[in-house]
């Protein structure tokens, strides 16, 4: 038998235990909208029993720990998927910018320039494609009346419009590239900040562990930061001492033994292509996931290839048109002038002297036959010429291929994002099912602890009455 004093003590401990349970429930409810939070439970175990004549007798219960309900395997999976999601989202965002920069869209509500409203209702295509088609179409019209100065002016203006569209798209590509570089810088700043915060949390967690406590809220915060960092760049996280974690990127240690040992920085390779490397180690980083990898890949593969192809298209257009034009004769009998100037999409323009004086357009094959249209016709017929440097495609076909290739890459990313959303959603649901706070559960637990508290209080008051009874017996 443990006696009244021990019984009173049991009641007091029980009150404390139930009270702690209520506090944890309260904490869970308070964090119901904290996405990084994992629900907690009070671990209650029986107090050490005492031996009595009739056997071992219990002495109540103690709250021995506050346990975090977390599935670390799921956490690691989510962290890994964050890198994939981050990369895909960054690629999608960059692709959308590139598509907008190219400015190629379909519009069936308007007619293309020069189309008769009654016959052709296939619509128009905004962008360079329409300008290429219109340029060659206007050359055909000019071939019908090669001496017409007004028609020559129309061709020159249309050619300048085509050149301007090439310039504009090339300029837009440069702007997108510059924007991606800036975004990379911003992401590096964010990643470095996260690394600092993770290292600091590591320290706090180690301190708490060394004092024998469970720093659940700090672990929640660190898990969230690690996922944020993983969405920026694929990281390798390993467990260190005293609850700390080590972080490495492409084999380069950034947080070692819980301490920040290196950070990230961008370096310009000299071609406005910013790349990543470690600040202290100076090691180049070749990322395989995360937003920064998405940015670099889109910039260096998709955008670079698109720009190269656009320049190839522009330079071939310049050389093919110039080659034919140079053989012709103007209305004044001059020959040998170029039609286009420049050598790429960025600097293509129409020969300024032609723009000033349309009679200098060299459309005749003979200086004595001003009305001859042979060269105009030959220039117009370039529309259907298969160009070796353009994979044996015509100008229009090559441009269409360029647009469609971008579209395919963009569609592929969109499709991957849709799939990735499902994976992420499933994992999030699983984690929420394990770690998320259920208000119904918490309210039930609250009731349980409340009733237990009331019952414990009843024990104390009963023991009190028993004491009174004993004291009255003496008097």
């Amino acid at each position, binding site marked *: 038998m443990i006696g009244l004093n021990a019984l009173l003590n049991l009641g007091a401990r029980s009150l404390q235990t139930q009270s702690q349970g209520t506090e944890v429930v309260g904490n869970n409810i308070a964090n119901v909208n904290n996405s990084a939070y994992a629900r907690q439970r009070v671990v209650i175990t029986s107090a050490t029993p005492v031996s009595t004549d009739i056997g071992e007798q219990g002495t109540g219960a103690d709250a021995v720990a506050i346990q975090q309900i977390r599935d670390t395997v799921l956490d690691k999976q989510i962290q890994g998927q964050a890198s994939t999601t981050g990369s895909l989202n960054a690629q999608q965002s960059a692709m959308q910018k590139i598509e907008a920069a190219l400015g190629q869209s379909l519009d069936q509500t308007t007619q*293309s320039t020069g189309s008769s409203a009654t016959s052709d209702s296939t619509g128009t295509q905004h962008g360079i494609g329409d300008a290429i088609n219109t340029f060659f179409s206007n050359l055909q019209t000019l071939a019908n009346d090669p001496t017409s100065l007004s028609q020559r002016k129309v061709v020159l203006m249309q050619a300048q419009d085509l050149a301007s569209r090439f310039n504009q798209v090339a300029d837009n590509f440069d702007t997108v590239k510059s924007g991606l570089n800036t975004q990379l810088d911003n992401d590096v700043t964010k990643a470095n900040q996260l690394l600092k915060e993770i290292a600091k949390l590591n320290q706090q967690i180690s301190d708490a562990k060394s004092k024998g406590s469970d720093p659940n809220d700090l672990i929640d915060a660190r898990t969230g930061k690690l996922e944020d960092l993983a969405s920026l760049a694929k990281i390798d996280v390993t467990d260190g001492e005293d609850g700390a974690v080590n972080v490495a990127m492409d084999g380069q240690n950034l947080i070692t033994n819980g301490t920040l040992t290196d950070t990230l920085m961008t370096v310009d390779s000299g071609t406005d292509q910013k790349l990543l490397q470690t600040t202290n180690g100076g090691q180049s980083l070749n990322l395989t996931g995360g937003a920064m990898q998405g940015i670099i890949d889109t910039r260096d593969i998709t955008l670079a290839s698109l720009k190269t192809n656009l320049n190839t298209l522009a330079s071939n257009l310049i050389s093919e048109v110039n080659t034919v034009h140079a053989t012709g004769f103007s209305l004044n009998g001059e020959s040998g002038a170029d039609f286009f100037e420049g050598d790429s999409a960025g600097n293509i323009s129409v020969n300024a002297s032609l723009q000033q004086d349309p009679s200098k357009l060299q459309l005749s094959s003979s200086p004595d036959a001003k009305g001859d249209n042979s060269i105009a016709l030959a220039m117009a017929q370039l529309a259907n010429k298969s160009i070796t440097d353009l994979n044996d495609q015509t100008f229009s076909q090559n441009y269409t291929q360029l647009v*469609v290739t971008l579209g395919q890459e963009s569609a592929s990313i969109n499709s991957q994002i849709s799939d990735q959303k499902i994976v992420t959603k499933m994992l999030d649901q699983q984690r929420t099912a394990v770690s998320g706070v259920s208000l119904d559960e918490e309210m039930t637990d609250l009731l349980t602890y409340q009733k237990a508290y009331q019952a414990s209080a009843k024990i104390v008051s009963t023991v009190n009455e028993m004491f009174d009874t004993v004291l009255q017996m003496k008097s």
Partner: protein
Amino acid sequence: MRVAFNSYADNLTSQLGDLASRQSQLQLQASSGQRIQNASDDPSSMQEVLNVQAQAKQINQYQNNIGKQLDLANATYTAINSLKTIANRANEIITLANDLTSPDRLTIYGNEVDELIKQAVTIANSKSNNTYLFGGTTAGVTPYTMEVDDSGKVTNVSFQGNESVNSVEIAPGTTVSAQVPASNTSGTGQRGLFTDVTSGADLFTHLMSLRDHLSAKDSKSIRDVDRPLLQEDSDNVLYQIGFNGAIQARLQIAQTQWKGQTFNLNNQVADESGADLAQTSIRLSQTQTAYQAALQGSSKIMSMSLLDYLR
């Protein structure tokens, strides 16, 4: 499976996001009538549509070219037909002159032929859209000039143009010219209308010869020399009328073909990129219903709580 409090909110947010995105996409399709706007919407259809639109633009241009060539062919036909009238009258005069005995009548016919020459020169200098029909590829140069003596008689008609013609494209790699060369002295290429070495035509020279023989009352030369020569001119004019008809027929066939092709291309674009309005409307309606259901269902579930039953 255990359901956390925020699962409802997370699921609702995700579902509403997806449904709103689909609604927006379907609404855009319904309002524009287009299933695709950008290459990423459907790359293969985009490729098809861009190629078809480029083709349609080219065909539209070919149709414009054909229209202009038909205008030129019509104007040329009018001129050749007028020339035929002149050639016929000249042959008529030869026949009449052969039967005449009155020298005065021959002189009158001689004067008439001189007027025919002047009219032929006017025809030879005909214009269409401010361009000489028979000047070849020389621009701004009057094709034929004539010299007259004091009595107003034509003494010489000279050709200032060249023997080339301009062609335009009416199909990829296929060119055609409705222009007729006024002269062909080489014997290769298209026959000349006024002078042609192959057919022996030389209208102005032959008319002047007839006029001179009429004035000289040289019936023998009219019969033996001028008749066969002017017959060659008449035959050449008839050949040119036939050639012009053939060109016009060819152009009209090409025009009809392109019209049919344009119709097919329009259908092709509609098939590839057009939104089926009935289907789109139904899908939009379904998505809207799903959106409402998600809102309604979630609001009911989320409004229920154990708290409502605890006192």
